């Protein structure tokens, strides 16, 4: 192993990139676009959902305070305005029609004498008036429907609190142990970082090595004192640097545009990403030995991206993946990088806590590197 020869390979990769604006643009714009598009689209926060309210409750005059009171209006005013865009309609038929024709996602119906019944019930639990708020949703979009239901429940709790009718028990999830005040983006950025580096490194080495093979450059290299291991290490150095640069770009944008949370040692996150880049480039080299032409190489690509996209815990946690699929999650290297970077950035974990991920990634990197080097040597049959 001669590091000068490995570095000569690294240098040639960077020299080539200096002239290849398109590839450089792909390397750095693709991650940004991916982060912004996926980040905004999947941000998980449902907003601006149109609902209509049919309020048959006219309110009543509070017998003790002697003032007009409407609990239904209080609840409506407690709806989360970010989530629900509320329009009043006159009757149930009209409301149902609007949902049916797709103009609204739900009709929320307050029964007649709702306020009065509510008051009476609070005085006398056996009172039989109707206090049910009917929420008739368009559940064809489950996420939206769930957001509506939650918003209505939250408004009820808040209203009860406002009028001093608090439940005798409650949940307080404010004081989080990790990720206090975390938003979807905080969860998402470490995932997309790992995903982007994995995907682009695999793709670029795959294309690059198919080129090395078909152009005859690989054979020329193999006729020099350069060893296969030096060639691969040269690539590894180049692509870990590129991976870390991509990470820097993503983090800068994450902090500047999405105000993401970084509580841990960011250097550790870089190290994890560099390891992942090494795993990915070995995979790229391996795949290149299966492809005769660039076009064939591209066909492998969905095979790599799709499972990673779905199973690596980028958009949803591994716990949300059906149990029988979970072993697959543990079989793909990016899962460990996603877990490790997320733990470092959000939980502030150090090497002492993420060592399992590091060991797994080192294992993948070592094994893949060796197989990649062997696959190059096998060319000399």
């Amino acid at each position, binding site marked *: 192993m001669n590091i*000068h*020869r490995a*570095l000569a390979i690294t240098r*040639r990769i960077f020299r080539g990139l200096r002239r290849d604006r398109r590839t450089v643009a792909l390397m750095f714009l693709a991650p940004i676009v991916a982060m912004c598009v996926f980040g905004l689209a999947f941000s998980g926060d449902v907003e601006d959902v149109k609902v209509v309210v049919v309020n048959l409750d006219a309110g009543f005059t509070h017998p003790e305070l002697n003032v007009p009171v409407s609990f239904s209006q209080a609840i409506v005013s407690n709806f989360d305005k970010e989530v629900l865009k509320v329009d009043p309609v006159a009757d149930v038929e009209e409301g149902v029609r609007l949902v049916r024709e797709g103009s609204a996602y739900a009709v929320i119906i307050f029964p007649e004498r709702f306020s009065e019944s509510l008051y009476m019930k609070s005085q006398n639990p056996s009172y039989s008036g109707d206090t049910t708020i009917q929420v008739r949703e368009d559940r064809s979009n489950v996420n939206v429907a769930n957001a509506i239901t939650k918003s209505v429940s939250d408004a009820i709790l808040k209203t009860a609190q406002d009028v001093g009718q608090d439940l005798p028990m409650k949940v307080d999830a404010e004081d989080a142990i990790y990720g206090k005040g975390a938003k979807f983006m905080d969860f998402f950025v470490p995932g997309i970082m790992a995903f982007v580096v994995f995907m682009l490194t695999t793709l670029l080495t795959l294309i690059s090595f198919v080129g090395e093979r078909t152009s005859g450059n690989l054979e020329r290299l193999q006729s020099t004192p350069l060893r296969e291991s030096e060639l691969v290490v040269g690539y590894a150095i180049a692509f870990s640097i590129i991976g870390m640069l991509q990470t820097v770009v993503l983090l800068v944008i994450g902090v500047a545009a999405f105000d993401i949370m970084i509580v841990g040692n960011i250097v550790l996150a870089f190290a994890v990403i560099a390891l992942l880049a090494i795993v990915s480039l070995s995979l790229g080299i391996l795949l290149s030995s299966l492809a005769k032409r660039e076009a064939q190489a591209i066909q492998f690509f969905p095979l790599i991206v799709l499972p990673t996209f779905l199973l690596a815990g980028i958009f949803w946690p591994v716990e949300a993946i059906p149990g029988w699929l979970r072993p697959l999650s543990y079989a793909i290297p990016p899962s460990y990088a996603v877990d490790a970077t997320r733990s470092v950035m959000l939980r502030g974990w150090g090497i002492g806590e993420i060592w399992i991920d590091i060991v797994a990634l080192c294992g993948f990197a070592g094994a893949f590197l060796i197989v990649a080097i062997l696959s190059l040597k096998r*060319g*000399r049959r």
Partner: protein
Amino acid sequence: MQTFAVEVKGLTKKFGSFTALDNLNLNIALGTVYGLLGPNGAGKTTAIKILCGLLRPNGGEGYVLGKKVPNRSILPEIGYMPQETALYLDLTVHGNMALYGDLFGLSRSRIAERESELLDFVALQKWKDSLVSNLSGGMKHRVSLACSMIHEPKLLFLDEPTVGVDPELRAAFWEYFDLLKKKGVTIVLTTHYMDEAQHCDRIALLRQGQLLAEGTPGDVIKSAGATNLEEAFLALAKREDGRS
């Protein structure tokens, strides 16, 4: 004392059931220009790749500079110019040459010296900082030749070095090969232009992986009872077919 740059004994190479080289025997003396001749598919490239350690023979053995191939220890001493252009298109001429200079462990200043000498020879000095992708086919070919000589190898394997090179430059190439020979460099080259082989000290005529004839160009022509190599090849091929 080692007298042969290359010795080949019973070399055989099969790709699956196809025999690309069939029991080839050759001796190439140090300090000579040796031509492997034959039509496309004769096995010239296969033979060179085996000698450069890029392919393993299925039978027989090849010795390069006294070492049985494949052997890493000869790699610093040999230069290989592949048949394909085999250059990095996204690098400049300088970038390509510097890469190979680095891989052979040359110092910065040595690379600069060699680069300048070689670019003078292939007449590409003013293209030094051009991207290889912007060069014509013939120019790429010359860069490729220059790259394989950056480290002043003792033994050069050139696979079709004169293909697509215009006649004037081709003449210059042969002059340069003579110059290298005078410095003691051994050159093993392939070509399918029979007329060019007159410049070689000795030639081997290959056909379908088999050796048809070997010797100085004059000997080969005489033994076939022909007036030039082209005729000699056709006559020998016919004789061979009649025999089998």
